[in-house]
């Protein structure tokens, strides 16, 4: 048996946008075990419900993460609306889908760029982020913010998308679709990229199931697990099928995410076409009293929101289980048996969001 040695990885590392520490147990160049540690950027956001009233807290909830901020605001709003029995107007539901899917595209493109950067394809990295910038411009045009949207409210949304903006979005996403196709072809067909993705970091369907993985990580391993099929917001009124992979390796995860970006473009198109006219929000009076549990699909996977209230303007309890937290165990499993040089790629491959995880 080769001599074992422990190599620390992180919390500061060139591939890590956020801090996570891994103790890698190596036998020569092969990783045999991984011990993750988190807790570097815990902010105690859930505890703030005792200091901020439930309407004010929405703006804090959506600042849990900078990339899927709309999803966090949406999940929190849905949880409060469920407790209070608020029926959101149909137009607001469609608008929420449009913004959530824009968030998904820019999150997946951010990931694609970081992935390309991790395997040393700088040109591809810049191409991904160039397309992402166009999405961010559309988000800024319609919501007022590039990453933090602050456009969701309890009972609906605060801003509408007018006809001119809808036309502009439809035109832009057509161009983005063409550009994205070139990116997808490179990720999936280029042989030098495939040397870093094919058969690397395999997570079998059974392992993904046993470790409670979610999102593209689980779907790439063949698990049909997409919370959008529950039909929250307007997803129940749109046509889509979850994108499922088979191999569970880096390649499958790339394919899953890039195909989801195309699916998001299709969903935005459907939502903007089918969106009915009408109100975008209903007034909400009183305080929440009860308990609710909401699951939504964020770019990185399933996010769970639990709210407890007792008729006071301050919530008793708010809990969010974010997708990266669920996927950390899966990430460690993909690393076992991998080469040390593949570790940065395997960290990026789950699309980690440590701010979400630590809240």
């Amino acid at each position, binding site marked *: 048996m080769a001599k074992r040695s422990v190599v620390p990885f992180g919390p500061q590392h060139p591939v890590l946008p956020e801090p996570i520490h891994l103790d890698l147990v190596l036998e020569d160049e092969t990783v045999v075990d991984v011990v993750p540690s988190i807790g570097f950027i815990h902010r105690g956001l859930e505890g703030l419900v005792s200091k901020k009233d439930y309407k*004010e807290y929405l*703006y804090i909830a959506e600042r849990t993460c900078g990339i899927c901020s709309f999803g966090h605001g949406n999940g929190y709003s849905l949880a409060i609306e469920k407790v209070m029995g608020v029926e959101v107007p149909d137009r607001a539901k469609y608008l929420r889908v449009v913004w959530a899917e824009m968030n998904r595209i820019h999150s997946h493109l951010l990931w694609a760029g970081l992935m390309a950067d991790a395997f040393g394809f700088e040109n591809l990295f810049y191409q991904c982020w160039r397309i992402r910038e166009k999405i961010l*411009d559309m988000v*800024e045009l319609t919501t007022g913010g590039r990453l933090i949207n602050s456009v969701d409210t309890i009972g609906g949304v605060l801003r509408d998308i007018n006809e001119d903006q809808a036309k502009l979005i439809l035109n832009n996403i057509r161009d983005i679709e063409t550009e994205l196709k*070139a990116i997808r*072809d*490179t990720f999936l*067909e*280029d*042989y030098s990229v495939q040397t870093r993705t094919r058969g690397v970091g395999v997570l079998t369907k059974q392992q993904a199931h046993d470790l409670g993985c979610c999102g593209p990580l689980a779907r790439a391993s063949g698990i049909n697990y997409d919370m959008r099929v529950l039909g929250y917001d307007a997803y129940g009124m749109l046509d889509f099928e979850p994108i499922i992979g088979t191999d569970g390796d880096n390649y499958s995860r790339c394919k899953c995410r890039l195909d989801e970006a195309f699916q998001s473009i299709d969903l935005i198109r459907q939502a903007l076409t089918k969106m009915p006219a009408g109100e975008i929000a209903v007034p909400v009076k009183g305080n929440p009293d009860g308990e609710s549990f909401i699951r939504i699909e964020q770019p990185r996977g399933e996010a769970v929101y639990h709210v407890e209230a007792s008729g006071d303007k301050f919530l008793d309890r708010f809990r969010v289980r974010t997708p990266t937290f669920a996927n950390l165990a899966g990430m460690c499993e993909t690393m076992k048996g991998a080469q040390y040089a593949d570790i940065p790629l395997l960290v990026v491959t789950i699309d980690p969001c440590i701010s979400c995880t630590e809240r």
Partner: protein
Amino acid sequence: MSKSRIMAFTWATMKNLFSKPVTKNYPAQPIQYPEGARGHIEIDIDECISCGLCERNCPPGALKVEKPPKGTWSINRFDCIACGYCVSNCPKSCLHMVTGYQEPMDEKFDYSETRPHMGEEWVKAQAEKVAKAKAIAAQKAAEKAATETK
């Protein structure tokens, strides 16, 4: 299928060489914000009634309202998260979200505006108003009592 995509990227490189850059030449070229972009909060201080609702509903606690006679409205723009919740809570609609971000500084400070016509004269005028209203109320009460006695 495995093949090389080097030609696709060579084409992209050539295209980039002869096209305008995607990035903006900031700060030489100022950024064009879209209409409705959330940058920072401005107040129309003439309309402000110092109710303090914006201060009570500010998630990061960046706002501070001093009631008359001071009548000031202060914001720490470095703490402000530009969520716009104060704007939606203002009963007089005197708060506005405008484009353009706070420029970086070497220290945090409060930007403050004072309501016009505040100060000692304003206090004296308010006191006179209150005294006049009290006198009218007392006169009415006396007249009512006299009518009831008759």
